[in-house]
């Protein structure tokens, strides 16, 4: 019993439970939370974070991080705006933007894998570089007026339900990511790389290649997010999604992904994303001021890591006492 308890007290389970509690609470007690419009807004505004959280979780599991995601998103939004201004068709623009994201991710990946640079440093650098290039590309323009079908898709709902239209494609991506991380050899090797890169290499895992793939996918997803962002808010500006990386990192951390690598589940990460999103929504509806919301978010982060730790320590201590109290076997008599 204590053992199953220890295993149950995992971050991701705790976060998932918290999310459910919060939702139950909000549906019953918070005015305006449960209606379809609010829920669709809640989900729609959380989607960009959730989208980037997918590859970010994998990256963190493999022991790396990409701080440049928000800038990549901003850059692809800016390019989208600039090309749109040029009169290109949106159907041609979107693939170009995604390709750009791939290039951004590839650059990060090559710097990390070929030169062996720490990814935190590299991506803090490219965070500035990509955002700067976005500024050069689009300048002070705020491009609007994208075609209605696209705007509807990224901001509209499915009929009168609470689900944004973009939610279904997200679910597909989520499913792909979950399978990739938790059920494929690729995912398995990421956990090994994150926990011990050297041991993974000695097991014949192509560490560099896997990492390069991951960074590239992260770039792709970031640019997809950038396109989605520009359409969702129907505004392409160079500073779109500024600071999104911290929200993603906070959510992923909250979801129990260990930044030392090798641990965590995508379910936890996504639960973390929606927990933060829902919490903010609920607090706003309850008229909690923005300042207090920040304190609550911070406290939640701290508690989410301290809580399970304390619980586990109590459980382990109890188990220890029990084992010690067990009757001692007499020493085995030595052979004659």
């Amino acid at each position, binding site marked *: 019993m204590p053992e199953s308890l220890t295993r149950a007290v995992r971050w991701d389970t705790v976060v998932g439970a918290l999310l459910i509690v919060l939702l139950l609470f909000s549906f019953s007690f918070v005015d305006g939370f449960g209606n379809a419009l609010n829920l669709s807004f809640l989900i729609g505004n959380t989607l960009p974070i959730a989208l980037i959280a997918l590859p970010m979780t994998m990256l963190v599991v493999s022991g790396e991080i990409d*701080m440049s995601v928000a800038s990549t998103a901003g850059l692809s939004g800016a390019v989208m705006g600039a090309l749109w201004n040029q009169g290109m068709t949106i159907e041609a623009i979107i693939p170009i933007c995604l390709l750009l994201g791939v290039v951004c991710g590839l650059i990060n990946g090559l*710097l990390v894998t070929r*030169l*062996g*640079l*720490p990814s*935190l*440093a*590299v991506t*803090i*650098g*490219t*965070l*500035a*570089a*990509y*955002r*700067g*290039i976005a*500024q*050069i590309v689009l*300048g002070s323009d705020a491009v609007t007026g994208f075609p209605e079908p696209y705007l509807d898709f990224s901001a509209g709902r499915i009929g009168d339900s609470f689900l944004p239209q973009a939610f279904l494609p997200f679910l597909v991506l989520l499913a792909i990511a979950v399978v990739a991380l938790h059920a494929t050899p690729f995912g398995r090797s990421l956990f090994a790389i994150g926990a011990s890169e050297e041991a993974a290499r000695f097991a014949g895992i192509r560490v560099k290649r896997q990492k390069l793939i991951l960074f590239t996918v992260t770039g792709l997803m970031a640019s997809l997010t950038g396109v989605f962002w520009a359409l969702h808010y129907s505004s392409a500006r160079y500073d779109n999604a500024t*600071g999104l990386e*911290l929200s993603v*990192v*906070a959510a992923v*951390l*909250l979801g129990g992904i*260990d*930044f*030392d690598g090798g641990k965590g589940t995508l379910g936890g990460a996504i639960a973390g994303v929606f927990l933060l999103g829902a919490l903010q929504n609920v607090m706003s509806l309850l008229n909690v*001021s*923005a*300042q*207090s*919301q*920040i*304190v*609550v*978010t*911070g*406290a*939640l*982060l*701290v508690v*989410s*890591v*301290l809580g399970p*730790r*304390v619980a586990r320590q109590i459980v382990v201590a109890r188990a220890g006492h029990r084992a010690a109290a067990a009757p001692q076997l007499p020493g085995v008599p030595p052979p004659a």
Partner: protein
Amino acid sequence: MTVTAPTPTPAAEESGTRLMDRVFKMRELAILGVFLVMIAITQAGNSEFLSEQGIKDLLLNATILVLVATGQSLVVLTRNVDLSVGSTLGITAFAAGIYLQDGGNPVVAIALAVLLGIGFGLLNGLLVSLGQVPALVVTLGTLYIIRGIDSIWVGSRQITAADLPGGFVDFGSGGVSAVPWLALIALAVVGATAYYLKHFGSGREIYALGSNPEAARLAGIPVRKRTLAAYTFCGALTGLAGAMYLARFGNVDSGTGSGYELTVVSAVVVGGVVFTGGSGSVYGAALGALLLTSINSVLPALGVSSVWVLAINGILLVLAISVDRIVALRVASALKKKSAAARQPAAAHTVSVKGDTGHA
């Protein structure tokens, strides 16, 4: 079974060591080199750049970042991180400001900021070391908490230069000819910290526990105490930096210092302090800070349109760490070849000695 292994010749071994030493000093030298080249180019493009005022500005700009980066590098050395520095900077600056606004004594105000910084450092340190939870999460949490408390406390108030004693504000921009007081303070702090880290047992233990926490525990190093001390020190320096910020900019509101943590982390990383702990120096971190802030001064001075500044900034940052890395790799492989030559029997040995004098 009792056979003695042949001992390699001491001379060859020593040459390897000296080269090795150089590699390690290299890290700081590379940054210094990049910095000097950058300054030289800028001066060539704009002769006003290194005027007395220009040098003063350069140093003043770096001061606050140098202080916080020094504190941060101590924390990073212990294989932790403190993301809450930006928030702490903001709240300590405001605390000092509000005290001065009511007619307080500047020295007490600085002490107050430092004490408040120590308080938050202790909070972080206690959470990390006693809770044994990942520093990244905890300090991201305290980043939000302290910022929230700051904004609730500060509200829409702000401290402006007019509210502060003239002497305090003058102190923020004054100095001995081109060297500002603030820069002297920062220099003293960096020097003292570096000396402490090298020459005191507890300083070495900070490196040790970041290098291998498990071994540190077995070696009887008081891991929690040292971690706590590193955080407290970081908090103290951030508080000091908060007071300096107030003196320098004369202007504090609820947003002061937000987003600063990324700049600090960049400075530390560019300065060659390794994020997995145990390796790097505060000189490096300080140089990293100087390099980063100087990029921001260099580009406007060269008349680069501010549209380009951000991009160039980022690219330079990536370049700086790449160059540093490539140089390190090159030297390491040269070193390997060299020691290989040294490991060969007698004939090769003389060659390596000759090679060595060539280098000297």
